[in-house]
C-alpha cells in the first residue's frame, strides 16, 4: 500500500499516569523528536481504557489509537495492564469484524524511564497509520456503511454479556472457572469471537433497520449478509423484544425496531 498523498493521520494515545505518561514526559525533557499527530489522554491506568471508548474514538473519525501502559509486572495497580492486554485483543478482533485493520489499535508498554522508546513507538505507529491511510480505506466500503458498522461495534462492546466475558477473561484463562477448571485460551478466544460476532451482527441489524420496516431480505441486502443468518439473529432480537413484525408485504414479514 502506498501512503496517501498529503495524508496526516489523527491519532490518540491513552497513556497510563504512572509509567507511560512519565515516559512521554521524559521524551520531552530529553527533547526526543516525534511526529505531531498524537494527542495524548492521560488515564490513571491503561486498564481504564474502556473498549467502548476506543470504538467511540474511531466512530469520531480517529485514524489510529495507541494504548500504552506499564510493563507487565510493573503496574502501579498490580494487575491492571494484564486486563488491558486481554481487552485490547478483543477490541482488535472487533475491528477486524468491522473490516478495519487491527493495526489501527496499538498496545504496548513504556516505562517512566523509556523516553526514547516512547518517541520511537509514536514514530513507528504514525508511519503505520500513514501507510494504512485514512480510517476505512482498507474496509472496502463507503463512509456511511463504515460508520454503521463502527456504531454497531461500539454497541456490541457495551453489551453486558460481552463486558462480563472481557472482564473475566484473565481469571478464566489463567486461574480457574467456577467449576474449578481451567479454560484454555483457545476455547476462550473461540467463544469470545462467536459472542462478539453474534452481538455485532445483531447490532448491525438494528442499525440497518433504523426507523424503517424492512424484510429479512432487505436487511440482508443492506448488510451484505446471508438472509438465513439475518433471520437467525432477528429471531434472537425478537425474543429480546428489540424488534417486532409490523406487517407482511407480499410474502415478506416486515420488521421494525421496538423503541423503549
Amino acid at each position, binding site marked *: 500500500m502506498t501512503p496517501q498523498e498529503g495524508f496526516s493521520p489523527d491519532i490518540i494515545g491513552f497513556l497510563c499516569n504512572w509509567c507511560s505518561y512519565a515516559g512521554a514526559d521524559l521524551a520531552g525533557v530529553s527533547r526526543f523528536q516525534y511526529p505531531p499527530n498524537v494527542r495524548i489522554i492521560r488515564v490513571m491506568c491503561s486498564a481504564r481504557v474502556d473498549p467502548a471508548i476506543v470504538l467511540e474514538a474511531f466512530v469520531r473519525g480517529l485514524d489510529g489509537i495507541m494504548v500504552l501502559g506499564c510493563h507487565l509486572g510493573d503496574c502501579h495497580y498490580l494487575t491492571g495492564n494484564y486486563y488491558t492486554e486481554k481487552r485490547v485483543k478483543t477490541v482488535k478482533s472487533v475491528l477486524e469484524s468491522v473490516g478495519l485493520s487491527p493495526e489501527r489499535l496499538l498496545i504496548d508498554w513504556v516505562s517512566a524511564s523509556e523516553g526514547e522508546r516512547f518517541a520511537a513507538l509514536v514514530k513507528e505507529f504514525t508511519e503505520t497509520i500513514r501507510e494504512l491511510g485514512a480510517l476505512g480505506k482498507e474496509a472496502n466500503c463507503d463512509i456511511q456503511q463504515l460508520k454503521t458498522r463502527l456504531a454497531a461495534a461500539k454497541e456490541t462492546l457495551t453489551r*453486558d*454479556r*460481552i463486558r*462480563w*466475558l472481557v472482564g*473475566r477473561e484473565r481469571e*478464566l484463562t489463567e486461574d480457574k*472457572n*467456577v*467449576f474449578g*477448571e481451567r*479454560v484454555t485460551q483457545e*476455547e*476462550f478466544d473461540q*467463544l469470545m469471537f*462467536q*459472542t462478539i460476532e*453474534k452481538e455485532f451482527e445483531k447490532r448491525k441489524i438494528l442499525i440497518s433497520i433504523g426507523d424503517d420496516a424492512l*424484510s*429479512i*431480505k432487505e436487511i*440482508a441486502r443492506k448488510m451484505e449478509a446471508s*438472509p*438465513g443468518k*439475518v*433471520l*437467525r439473529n*432477528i*429471531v*434472537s432480537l*425478537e*425474543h429480546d*423484544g428489540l424488534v417486532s*413484525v409490523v406487517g*407482511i408485504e407480499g*410474502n*415478506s*414479514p416486515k420488521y421494525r425496531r421496538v423503541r*423503549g
Partner: protein
Amino acid sequence: MVSLQNPVSEVNKVGSVLVIGGGIGGIQSALDLAESGFKVYLVDKSSTIGGVMAQLDKTFPTNDCSMCILSPKLVECGRHLNVEVLTCSEVTGISGEVGNFSVSVRRRPRYVDIEKCTGCGLCAKFCPVEAIDTFNKGLCDRTAIHINYPQAVPLVYMIDKEKCIGCGLCRSVCLADAITYSDKEKVTTLNVGAVILAPGAEEFNAKLKSEYGYGRYPNVVTSIEFERILSASGPFSGRVQRPSDGDIPKKIAFLQCVGSRDVTCGNSYCSSVCCMYSTKEAVIAKEHMNQIEPTIFYIDMRSYGKDFDKYINRAKEEYGVRFVRCRISKVKEVPNTQNLRVKYETEDGRLSEEEFDLVVLSIGFTPSENIKQLAKNLGVELNEYGFSKIQPFYPLETSKPGIFVCGMFSSPKDIPETVTQASAAAAKAGELLSSVRGTLVKKKEYPDEMDVRGQPPRIGVFVCHCGINIGGVVGVPSVVDYARTLPNVIHACDNLYTCSSDTQEIIKNNIKEYGLNRVIVASCSPRTHEPLFQETIKEAGLNRYLFEMTNIRDQCSWVHLHDPEAATEKAKDLVRMAVAKARMIEPLERLSLGVTHRGLVIGGGLAGMTAALTLAKQGFEVDVVEKNQELGGFLRKIHHTLEHENTQENLRNLVENISANKLIQIFLNAKIEDVSGYVGNFKTTITQGSEKIERDHGIVIVATGGEEYSPNEYQYGEDPRIMTQLELENRIATPDLEKLGNVVMIQCVGSRNDEHPYCSRMCCGESVKNALKLKGKAPDTNVYILYRDIRTYGLIEEHYRKAREAGVIFIRYKEESKPTVTKALSEGKEVLHVSVFDPTIQEDILIDADLLVLSTAVVPPKENSILAKMLKVPINEDGFFLEAHAKLRPVDFATEGIFVCGMAHSPKSIDESIAQAKAAVSRACSLLTKDVIEAEGVIATVNPNRCTSCELCMQVCAYNAIEIEETKRGKTAKVNSALCKGCGACAATCRCSAIDIKGFTDMQLSSIITAMR
C-alpha cells in the same frame, strides 16, 4: 393363559413403581398409579418432563393446542405428593425380582438448585454463552443456562455444562441463590415393585436420506422442525417463515414416509402417525397464513384412526390441501431462490417435477441408541427393529416379568394410543402390586380449620418482588403502603420471593400474629402458584378458599417494562380489586362422596372380559353384563392373529379365568335397564329374562364392542362363493380347505363411504393375514387384494411386505370406480367375473374369481344409542361412543366414573382392545381405590326462591349436573355437586339470578368491577 409372572411372595412386594420416561405416556402412568395408592418415581433424562408433545403446536384430529392440554398434566405431576420427578436422570441397572426390584439411577448435575430456583429467567438474560436451541430443533439459539420451554416442569433452569465456560455471571445475578456449581453426578438406588418403560422413540435422522437434501438445503425441514415453526411459542412466533430468507412460503411440499416403510434404511415398518400429522401441519399452516398452498406426496393415506378420515376430507375440501399419490425420487435446490424442485413418479408411471418454496420431510420414528442401551441395562428383549418385544395378547408386557411397556417403545403410535397404553401399563403394575397398595403413599395432615364465619374480614396482603422481576418495574413498597390503606387490610408486607419456603413460614406466622382470616398474594400466576399458597394457609388452619391471588408479574411488570409508573398504578388497581373480592370470599366445603367398591362392565367381549378380570385382580368386585348367551363377542369369529397366535385358545383361557374368579359375577342374556346416580354411587337395574336385578356400582365401563357389517354390495348372500373376510377366516380354520384357484378380496366394503365414513382399521391387516394363510396352505392360489389405501400401520407393515413377497397381488381401485362383479361362463363353468380399473396401467383388469371375499366394515351395535342416553354420555356421528377428549382422555367420558374401551370406542385390533380395557380399569381404579372422593369446591348453587325452573341452566350444562326437582314449593333446579365442575355457564345464563358459583359469585365479581375507583 401363559402367565409371564413368577409367583412372588406377597410379603416382599414393594408398593412403589418406577416410570422411565417423562413424556405424555410416562406422565399418564405416573398420575394413574399415584392416584390409586402407589408411590411413583418418574425418571427422565431431560431437564424437564413433557417429551415430544411439548414440542408440538397442535394435535390432530381436533387441532387442540398441544401445550394447553399438556401443561395441566405437567403441573399435576410436578405437584403430586406421591410422584417424585427425577430429571436429568437415567436408569443404569436393575436387580431383585418381580415385586421387589432395586434400580440404580444416575443423575447428571444440573448446577441449579431445584428447591431454590424460581424460574425467573434472569440468569438466561445475562448468560454470555450461546448454544443451539435443541428444543426448537436448531432453528434458533439459546443460552448455556436455559429451560427448554416456558411452561416446563420443573420450572428450573439448567446449565449446559458442555457449552458453559464457567464465568460465574449467573450466580452473580441470581437473587434466589440457586446456582450450585459444586453439583456432582449422583447415583441412587430405588426400591420399587414394578417398572414401566415409557422412553418413547427418536425421530428418524433425515440426513440418512440424502436424496432429499436435508442438512444441505436450508428450506428442507423435518416435520418436527415445522411443528416449531408453526408454534406460537416457537422461533418465528407462529409465522410460517422459511429458514433461508424468512419469507412466507407459498407452496409447501410434504414428503411422506421419510425413514418409514423403507427397507433401505432398515425401517421397514410404518411409523403410523405421519399421514395424520402432516395433514394437520398442512391445515394449521393454511390457518396461520392463508396464502400457503400445501401439497402432500404420499404412498398410501393411512388415516385409520377414529375420525381421521373425516379430518383428511376436511383438509381436502375445506382447506384445499392437495394430496398426490406418488413416489419421490429426488429434491434439488434451485440456485438463487433456494426454492426446491421435487421430482416424483405418479401412480401411472409418469415422471413429474414441481417447484416448491419449502419442503417438509415427514420423518418416522425409531428407537434411539440410548433406549436400546436402557433395554440392555434392564434385560428387556428387543425385536428386530429395536422396539420392545411384545405378544398380541400381552401388549404391555416386556420379556422381563414386572417390567411393563407403553407408547412408542413397543411400536410407533399416536398420543391417544400412548396414553391408553400408559394407563393400561399402570393397571398391569396395579394388578401385580395390589396387595401392597397404599403402603408407601404419603397423606398430609392438617390442623383443624378455624371457624371464621361471622368474623369481619381481616386481610393480609403479601406483595412479591420476584427478585427484580416485579420489583424492578413496579414500586413494590408503594403498592404495600397503598394496600395498607384499603378497607379490612390488617397487614401488608413485601417479600423477595413470596413463593420461597421461608416466606411460607412468614405467612403462617402472620396469620397467627395478626389474626388474619383472608390472605392475598400479589405476585405471579395463580395457575402455577395458587395451590402452593392455599396449602400454606391450610397449614395455618384457614380454609383453602380464603385465598385470593393477583398477578402483578406476568400481566403487569413483564408486559409494561418501559412504563414503571403505569405498571405501579396498575399493580395498585389489581391489589384493590383483589381486596374487593377478598372481603366477600367465604370458606367453601368440598363435598365428600362415598364410593361403592364394585364395578360394572357392560359387554362380555374381549375388552369387557379383560376389563373385568383386571378389576378383579386389583381386588374389586365386578358385574359383567352380556347381551348374548355366551361370552366372547367379536373375538369368537377370529381364529388366529397376524403373528400366528391362536385366538380361540386365548379366548377359552380368558373365559375360564373370568368364570372362575369369585369377585366376578356374570350376567348372560342380560341387558341394562337403567342407570342412575353419579360417580362412586351408581344404581343399576339389570334385566335377565324376566328378572330385574338392582345393583350398586362405583364405576361403569362401557365395552359393548362392534359388529360385522352385513353387506348388500357385490351380490353378497346370493352365491356361496361370495363371503366376508371373517367367513373366509372360519373356512381357513377348517382342516379340509379345498383348492382355490383365484381369490379376490375387496377392501373397504361398507367402510369409508357415505353410510360409514370411517375406516374400520382392522380389515387391511385381516386380509393380509388371510392372504398369507391361503398362500401358506396352497402357494399356487392366486390372491388379489383390491384396495383403496393399504393401511397396515405400525409393525403390521411387515406382513404387507411378506404378502407381496409371497406373490399376493395388490391392485388399487379408486373410490369413484369401484370393482364390478358379474357372473359369467368361462370354460364351461360359471365364474365370478371381477373387473377393476388399475390406475398404474390405466386399464381395466379382469379376474375370474373362484372366491370373492369382502372385507366388511365394523359397525357399532344399535343399542349404543339407548345406552348412551341412559348413561348421559355422547356417541359420535358414526354411532361409536365419544370419549371426553380425543387426545388425553381416550377412555374417560366427560361424566366422571364412566369409561369406555374396545370397539365400543372405535374399530380396533386385539392388542389395542386389551390395552384400552386395562386403561379403563386404571382410570377406574383412581376412583375405586378411594373410600371417599372429594368433589370440587367451586360449584354452582341454586336459590330455590328465585328459580322459575325454566331449564335454561340445564341446557347449557355440559356435565348434566342440573336437574329439575319437584319440591313442596314447586319445581326448582338442583345442582348435583358430584357432577358440577364449576364453569359457571349456568349462572351467567340464568334469567333470574337464581344460580350462583361459589368462589366466583355474582357479588364477588361485581365487587371487583365496582372497585374501579
